Structure formats: structure tokens, C-alpha cells
């Protein structure tokens, strides 16, 4: 009887010790992996923000203003060459998808308005461009290389995240994905 009890106690002790150790190991590995991960991942709700819009007299727009529409959120800067290369594609598809309920929102990371305004004029961009002068939204979305693009559906959920430039075909594919159902 005593022997049996002792064996049982040892079993419980060993199981508990191993469980604690395994728990710590899992904690360490998950902790390490999530550090590499972006702050905002696919499948999550896109966090809201508010920034000044280019081409207006200090008017501010927030992501919530586009509720009910699919949103392509593009992080870019004038000094970023691949960003510049994909701009014409975005402008080309914008009018067509705007009618279908998809908005393109550029979040610009430059520091001076002049440079961006000249750029917008040069490429005749008509979609919304917002000024993330202090990089707050960039920080919020955990962006490191640009261009980075988030495709957000009408419910505010992030469907896709693309790091690097998009071709015209790829861009259209992604835009179709977030097109709200009529």
C-alpha cells in the first residue's frame, strides 16, 4: 500500500515537473517566433488610424471612414523606387475598382509635403493618399521594407499582406479578393 502510494507520488511529481519544463520551452519558442512576426498579421482586424490627407486643407481621414468597402492599404515613399514603379498600376485599376466598392489608400512616409504633392501631380494619382509624417502608422502596422501592402475586406479583416512591389496582374487578383459581394 505504502509502496503504491510512493510510486503514485513520484509519478505525479515527474509529470508535473516535465509539464512545467515543457511549458517553459514552448513559451520560449513561441515568444521568439512572435518577435519576428509582424505586429499586424493576416486574418486579424486592421487597426484603425487617422492621418492628414494630401491635396486637402489639413483634412483628416481615418481607416474607419472606409467601412463597408474593401481597402487596399499601400505603404510607400517617393524615394522608394519599387513603390514608384507600382504607382501607375494602382492608378490604372483604381477607377474601375472604386465603382466596385474598393478603395485604394496610400500611406506616405515622406517628411515633406512638397515632395509628395509634386509626385502625386506627376503620376496624376486620384486615390486617397495620407501623410504618416512621424511613421506612427508604419510603427503600428510593423512595416519595415516598403512597399508593403495590406488587402482588407469590407469587414475590416486583413485578407492578404504583400511585401514588395506588385505587378499589374497580381494587383488585380488581390483587388478582386477584397471586392465586396454585391
Amino acid at each position, binding site marked *: 500500500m505504502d509502496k503504491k502510494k510512493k510510486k503514485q507520488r513520484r509519478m505525479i511529481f515527474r509529470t508535473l515537473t516535465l509539464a512545467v519544463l515543457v511549458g517553459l520551452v514552448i513559451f520560449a519558442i513561441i515568444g521568439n517566433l512572435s518577435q519576428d512576426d509582424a505586429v499586424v498579421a493576416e486574418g486579424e482586424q486592421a487597426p484603425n488610424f487617422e492621418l492628414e490627407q494630401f491635396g486637402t486643407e489639413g483634412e483628416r481621414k481615418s481607416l474607419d471612414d472606409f467601412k463597408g468597402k474593401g481597402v487596399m492599404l499601400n505603404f510607400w515613399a517617393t524615394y522608394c523606387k519599387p513603390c514608384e514603379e507600382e504607382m501607375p498600376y494602382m492608378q490604372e485599376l483604381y477607377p474601375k475598382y472604386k465603382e466596385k466598392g474598393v478603395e485604394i489608400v496610400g500611406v506616405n512616409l515622406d517628411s515633406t509635403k*512638397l515632395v509628395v504633392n*509634386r509626385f502625386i501631380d506627376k503620376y496624376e494619382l486620384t486615390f486617397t493618399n495620407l501623410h504618416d509624417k512621424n511613421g506612427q502608422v508604419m510603427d*503600428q502596422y510593423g512595416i519595415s521594407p516598403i512597399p508593403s501592402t495590406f488587402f482588407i475586406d469590407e469587414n475590416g479583416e486583413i485578407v492578404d499582406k504583400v511585401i514588395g512591389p506588385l505587378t499589374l496582374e497580381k494587383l488585380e487578383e488581390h483587388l478582386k479578393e477584397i471586392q465586396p459581394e454585391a
Partner: protein
Amino acid sequence: MKKIKCECGHVNPEGTVLCEACGKPIEGNQHIDGNKKDSLLNMRYEGSARRSQTYNRNIVDKVWNFFSSVKVGVWLIIITLVASSLGTIFPQEMYIPPGSDPATFYEDQYGLAGKIYYQLGFHNLYSTVWFMLMIALIGVSLVICSIDRVVPLHRALKKQKPKRHHTFLKRQRVFGETNGQADVEAFKTKLRKQRYKVWDEDGHILAEKGRFSRWGPYVNHIGLIIFLLGALLRFLPSMYIDDFVWVREGETAVVPSTDGQYYVKNEDFILENYDPDKDERFQEALMNQNAPVASNYQTNAVIYERTNNDVVGAEPELEEIQKKEIVVNKPAKFDGFALYQSSYQLDEFSAMSFTLHETDDESAVLGEFTVDLTDPEMEYELDSGARVVIDEYFPEYYMDENQPRSKSKFPKNPAFVFYVYPPDGGDPEVSFAGIGMNIDPTNENQYKLSLAGYDTRDVTGLAVKKDYTLPFMAVGGLIFMIGVVQGMYWNHRRIWLQPREDGVWIAGHTNKNWYGLKKDIEKSIDQTGIDIPEDQQQLKG
């Protein structure tokens, strides 16, 4: 589970090598410690039952016994060491040229070996899952090995009896036989004088001191485990943050990793150098240097806390909570965060002034204007009625396939394309002006823009730190050291005396410093009639 009953009557757990009570070698278990007949006994862990191979009943026992093996532990350490050294063959990810993609960099630079290196995660070894797993397994091995050894060792030392089996004494390293009368009482008194604890059981004597030293390695391991736990806690952002922020003079930046709660303003960045003429002490050393030697890096900073709780990007309402001159090792501290002076950039351009004059006559000035490089205006109207329009602005100008471009948004090498509208309202002229250059693309310009002056400002680099794991590290490190001292500077010494028909037997054992033990024995047998025991190992050698 079979228990082993010794002839002295003590019941030992299975796997025992030497009886816990009397020390008699238990037949059939001598292979465990490699004991051979007639040779000296291996006194490791007192010959107690460690890792019990017989409990291999289920998966928990199997896992437990795997980690309980010191052999496994040593192999884990060897593998980790080899992996660490392999990780130094090619540079780690953080040291490859900035902007290069590690996915292609290693293969391009080092060929197939580089590709394998990258794919196995050697390029970022400390964050690679399998490497972390190895460290974790070492931790697990450490815990289980310690538990499986400290418990039986403690048991064996607690259960030991002064009355020992004769073979136990005979097979100790220090052993001696005395024929004739011995003054046992004097022997005991002398042992006590040397701060030995003495037990007497029917004339059988056990004298022991420094048992506490045997716990040293386990105390040491506890310290190590606390240290590891502290390192684990660094994965929690609430416990540990290590970030960085650049702040330009006059600007207020959000402190990263604080969820936009805190802002820091750089009012002034100061870099001071040692002046050889002023300070004679360092004169000679300073003269030997080609470059000036910095004596102070300082940021005059103001820390603000956001008081409103608006959406990200909205203008924050800030309340000043601290003014601080941040110098090296004297950070600004607030709410668990610390801002350390850690980097700087001098003389970034902040404003440029131009004079517009006739191309042929510099004294015929049409006006002056200043461009604020952080917020340039589209158009500048001059006193004479002339207008200058900025057509393009390149903060960090460079030529890219014959096209002017900017490398970044920071005004490190500003350049402009100006449209100059003459006072009389004619067609504009194009001018391209920057630092140290002024290009007239048509060579027919009537007016010229000359750089009249510029303002610069410094940028300070502040490291953002928060570390609540340090107390764990400190306590763990302290316990680690206590364990080391405990195990190193004290010795566990034991002396046994056994009455025989024609005299006495004496034996001694220590975990280290045999010289000290022999000295102790010599002192305590002085004038007691007991002969000096011999070192059986030395005799054989």
C-alpha cells in the same frame, strides 16, 4: 519494485551501489559505478540509487530517465557548442550589408555552403528554433539531473551510520590498521577540536565536517535555472524592451514600444571634445591622436506623456513630465523605461538660404529667401517681384541613370529644381541648385541663384530600454556564485574508526583536498596510539 535489504538490516532502494547505512557494496550493482573487487570504492553520490532504470513503465518515466542521464546532458552541451562554433563561419544576419536579402546573400557570397548555412538557420543562430530547443533541452537536463541526484545523495548522507561494513573501510583511499591499544577518547576530543561532528555507536566512530559543501553544485544549478528563467522573461514585452529612436534637434518623436504613450523632444545635442590646451593630464595622449577625442555626448531632452487617448496618427496632447540632460550612462528614466544616449549624426541640413542675382553681376541682387528643409514652400516671392517656385526637391540627392533622385527623406544632401520667374513676368528659367553645385541647363539664364548660407542641426540616437528581468539575473548570478564558493572552498571530510579484535581500523574520505584530510587525521591521532593511515591510491600508483 525490489528493495535491497543489507546484512546490517537497512533496506535500500533499488539501484543502490553502497548500502546507505553501513556502506557495504551491494552485490550485483557494482557495475553501475564501475567498482571492481579489491579496488577502491567509487564514492560518487555516496553510491546511492540514482536514475532508476527499472521504472521504465510509461512514457513519463522514459522521458524522465532520458534527461536524468549526465551522458545525455554532456552530449546536448557538445552539440550546442559545435553549433555555436559553426555559426561563426559566415557572418550573422545582423552583420551582412544593410539592405541585402539574407535569402540570396549567403548563396551569392558563399555558394552552396552559404545556402545550406542559411537554410539551417545558422545565419541567425540564437533565434533559430532548433538552437533554442537545444538550449531548452540543456535546461531540462540540468533540472532533472539535479533532482535525480540531490535527493538520493541527501538521503544517503542522512542515513549513514557510524557502524560501517568492514569492506567499506578497507576499500577507502585513506585506510590504516593499528594493532594494539588506542586512546579513542583522546582521538574524539582532538577531532572535536578541529570542528568535526563526532558520532559514536558501540565504539564505532564517524567524524564528519563540511557536509554543506556537497550541496554546492545544486545551489549553483538553482542559480543557473533562475538566470535562465530571467532570460525567458525577456520574451515578454511587459518585462523587456530594447528599441531605438532617432530624434532631430527641435523635433518631438514618439518613443517606440510605448504604444504612443510617451514622446521625447530633442532640444539640443551636444558633442564636446577634450581640449589638449586646457587639460594637461591628457595632453600627450591627445597629441598622439589624429582625430579629436570626445569627452561628452549629451542630449537635452524633454519627455512628454500623451494625455488624450485618440486613435493612432491623431495629434497627441502632450504633458511634460521630465526635463533631462541625457549623457552616456545617465539615461532619462520614466515609468520603467530608460532612454540612453547611444548614437548621433552631426550637421544634417535644416535650412538653406539663396540669393537671386543677375548672372553677370552678383551685386545686382533681386532678393533673398530661405527654404525650411523640413517643410519647404512651393513658391517664394521676392522683394523685387521675382518669384521662385520649387519644382522638385531631393532631400538626399544622387544621380540615378542620369535622373536626379533622392535616397531618403532626410536632408543630407539637399538639391532643388527651381523655376525662376523674372520680376517683369516673363517665362521662367530653370536652375538646378544644391550643396556645392549650381547648374544652368540652358546656359542662357539671365538670373542666378547662389547659396547664401545654411543651417544645420544634429540628430541624436536614443536607445529605449526597459528591463525588469535584471533582478532575476542578479539573484540567479548571486546564487550561482554562492554555489560555486560553497562547493569549492569547503571540503566534505569524513573519518571512520572501527574497533577490531586486535586494535582499530581507521579510514578517511573527502571529495577534494586529500592533503587537508590527511593533515586532519595526523593531528587527531597524535599520541593516541593509532598509526598513520596510508593513501592506498598513492601506494598503487
